[in-house]
């Protein structure tokens, strides 16, 4: 009952993905045969008329143990700390890369600085783009969501981790959340590098060159033009490359111009794309998060839904059990005269008298008028023997039994001839049962022509 109470009162407090995680977790447990007793919970949830998914989620929250619930709730708490630690590392790495870019013998080779500052970020960006385009790569990346599962106790890792991966994997949620976090971390790193660079450039004097030993000079100058293209297009300062290529920066203006050029290069080619991609990933992630849901086409969820939202419900019996009146066929009045063969509720196609019957046959009883007429006749002249033929293939009902009782009350012993008993199967047994119950001796339940004729002869 406590489970039912919890589900009814507790509003959903966890974010959707964690509730889905719980539901998937329960599914894995139940599919392995650990079915829960959910009767009380289902009874409590039914009248709430929740939607399909909501009802399933509530059921899972009500049924899963406290351990699992706690683990799922805890999975979120580790995150900020982990992110802060990683961001700290990114800052250190950024500052270090700024220092490395300007370290070494003076004058500083700008080509080296650019490679140090933008090389690794660009490489990782290319890898990400590759993964973005490849399904297999995305699938692999999506496992990163498993990081969350590391906080799970070992006993829960099997189901809990798989359930989490299943939830995150379905709509590319993991990939885009991974993208968001990784772009943000790179942005932090590049921002730290930018600030470190600015600090170093403010506090010390650097001379810049753009030099090579092996590569043709034309290639270097073209590289300079390419690198300057995006910052220039965004409105950054344009610097004439000729003096730098000619020998270096010997005037303070030139040094300043090239320092600014380096800063805007890192901002435009490093930081800006990361920020834009982080925004895009965040947007897509939010959108996928809103769309994420259970796979309701799965047979397991169909079965759960059938319990939560049944096609029909039985309503308690509207009437108390009634007592069925009894009829007595035992009555027997001596002193009657004559013998009668009657047919009760026989079909039109039925030959009458029955095939092979040689003695005279009485009327058929079906309609009310026929019954009334026969009863009047028999009451006026009580018979010594009454043989009533019925079709054993029909159901013995109270209308038959009541008529038989009325007939039996008229006179001498009454026997019932079950026509087609050999074809009637179970129903012929039912006839026997009902007739015996009404007090007819077993000897007077006849199912063969010979027996009927013999009983008829006895009366002579």
């Amino acid at each position: 009952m406590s489970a039912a109470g919890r589900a009814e009162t507790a509003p959903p407090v966890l974010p959707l993905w964690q509730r889905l995680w719980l539901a998937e977790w329960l599914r894995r447990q139940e599919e392995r045969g650990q079915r829960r007793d959910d009767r009380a919970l289902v009874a409590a949830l039914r009248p709430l008329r929740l939607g399909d998914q909501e009802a399933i989620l509530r059921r899972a929250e009500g049924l899963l143990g406290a351990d699992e619930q706690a683990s799922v709730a805890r999975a979120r708490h580790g995150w900020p700390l982990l992110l802060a630690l990683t961001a700290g590392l990114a800052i250190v790495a950024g500052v270090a890369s700024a220092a490395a870019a300007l370290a070494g013998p003076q004058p500083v080779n700008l080509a080296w600085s650019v490679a140090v500052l933008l090389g690794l970020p660009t490489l990782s960006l290319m890898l990400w783009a590759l993964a973005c385009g490849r399904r297999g790569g995305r699938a692999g990346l999506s496992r990163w969501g498993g990081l969350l599962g590391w906080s799970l106790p070992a006993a829960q890792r099997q189901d809990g981790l798989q359930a989490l991966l299943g939830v995150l994997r379905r709509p590319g949620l993991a990939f885009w959340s991974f993208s968001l976090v990784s772009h943000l971390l790179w942005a932090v790193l590049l921002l730290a590098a930018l600030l470190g660079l600015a600090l170093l450039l403010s506090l010390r004097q650097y001379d810049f060159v753009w030099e090579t030993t092996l590569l043709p000079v034309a290639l270097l100058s073209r590289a300079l033009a390419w690198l300057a293209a995006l910052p220039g297009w965004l409105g950054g300062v344009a610097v004439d490359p000729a003096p730098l290529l000619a020998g270096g920066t010997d005037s303070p203006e030139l040094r300043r111009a090239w320092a600014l050029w380096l800063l805007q290069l890192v901002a435009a080619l490093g930081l800006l794309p990361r920020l834009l991609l982080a925004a895009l990933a965040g947007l897509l992630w939010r959108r996928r998060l809103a769309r994420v849901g259970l796979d309701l086409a799965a047979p397991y969820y169909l079965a759960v839904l059938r319990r939560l939202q049944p096609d029909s419900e039985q309503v308690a019996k509207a009437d108390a059990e009634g007592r069925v009146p009894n009829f007595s066929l035992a009555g027997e009045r001596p002193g009657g005269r004559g013998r009668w063969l009657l047919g009760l509720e026989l079909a039109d196609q039925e030959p009458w008298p029955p095939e092979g019957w040689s003695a005279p046959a009485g009327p058929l009883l079906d309609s009310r008028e026929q019954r009334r007429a026969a009863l009047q006749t028999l009451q006026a002249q009580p018979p010594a023997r009454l043989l009533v033929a019925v079709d054993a293939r029909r159901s013995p009902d109270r209308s038959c039994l009541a008529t038989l009782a009325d007939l039996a009350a008229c006179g001498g012993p009454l026997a019932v001839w079950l026509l087609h008993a050999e074809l009637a199967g179970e129903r012929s047994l039912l006839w026997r049962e009902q007739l015996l119950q009404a007090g007819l001796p077993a000897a007077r339940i006849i199912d063969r022509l010979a027996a009927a004729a013999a009983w008829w002869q006895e009366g002579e």
Partner: protein
Amino acid sequence: MNGDWMRLAVVGHTNTGKTSLLRTLTRDADFGEVSARPATTREVQSARLLVEGRVLVELFDTPGLEDPIALLEWLDDAAGERRRSDGVERVRQFLASPLAAGRFQQEAKVLAQLLRSDAALYVIDSRDPVLAKHRDELQLLALCATPVLPVLNFLRDPAARPSGWNEVLGRAGLHAQVRFDSVAPERAAERQLYQALALMLPSFAEPLQQLLAARQLAAEQQRRAGWRLIAEALVELAVLRVRPPGADQGARAMALQQLQQRAREREQRLVDDLLGLYRFNRGSVDNQELPLRGGRWGVDLFDPAAARLFAARLGGGAAAGAAAGVAVDLAFAGITLGAAALTGALLGGGVQTARRYGRRLWGQWRGQPELRLDPDSLTLLLCRADYLLRALEARGHGAVAPIPPGSSSLALPPLLRAVAERPEWSERPDSPERERAVAELGEQLAVAHAAVGAN
């Protein structure tokens, strides 16, 4: 008498299958008690048909009208005293009389329920001859002035004689009627029943439409879930590998048997799952004209006879009557490991996957190839499952019995061939990737199945 849903009384002479009809309409195999014993239902029981938790129709199961002749006689005699009163008035008088609590207790319950209902389904066992009591029964119903829709039951039975019933129903002014077989109902019959009711009672047309739409949606979901179950079994068997314990023939034969046994057991589990999905009890399967006996296929999966039955739909060796069986798994010799799988393995699966591949490769080199089920066996399993699913959908629809020769073949979807190259999945039945593949395969099969069915 509160609520605004439609109330339907299900009436009829005793033992005509009223409760069976209710079970079909409610999808509740445990509704009431059904037995050949007459008057099993001794009191009014009701079932509410729900859509999303809302009651749309309430069906009242009534005890059989067993003694209509005597009751009508009584009512006619009583009318002699008050000739002017109409039918409803006379029925009310009867209900207030002491007889209603005595000899005619059952009938009183039925009539009282009729007066409280919006319409009545009059269930007829069409194997019964039309007798005077049936005519009187119809007269009794007419007295209550409740719209009556006759439902002809057991029409599939060779002993059915609907013409006599048509005549007597027509004379009673009941020209609309629905044909139903509560033992082996046709899908369409339920729709016809609700549509006929909607025509009869236009004010309830909308909820009836909703009910129909919801039931159709549920049927579609059920079908898709069925294909998902089949996909699950196919994937499980496709990725299955068995390594012989030695290199000799005996070891090989042992592994083969083990593989076949696993396939048989999995197929049986699939059959059980499908029956459960379609809410059949194992016990109730036999009289439903399904191709099963006692919930099992009569012919073993690896019996050549099984293949011959579906020969037109199988290709290759199985069509020739050869026992479908087992193939040596050469796939892993490094040839078919697709680039995508490799990327996935390197990026995600990591060490574990690589180790497993390594072990398998080692086995190949040492001359211990693994065995797996050949595609023909899987195709045969798919054909059988497809056949069973159709039978379950139609629930004994006559068209299911013979397999039409030359019907379009159900080839294994390419996706399954790709899945078969992931033997590592056999140890990870719950991996999200495998579940995703199963879901996708199930969808593909459901679509292909719908296309085949439309031909």
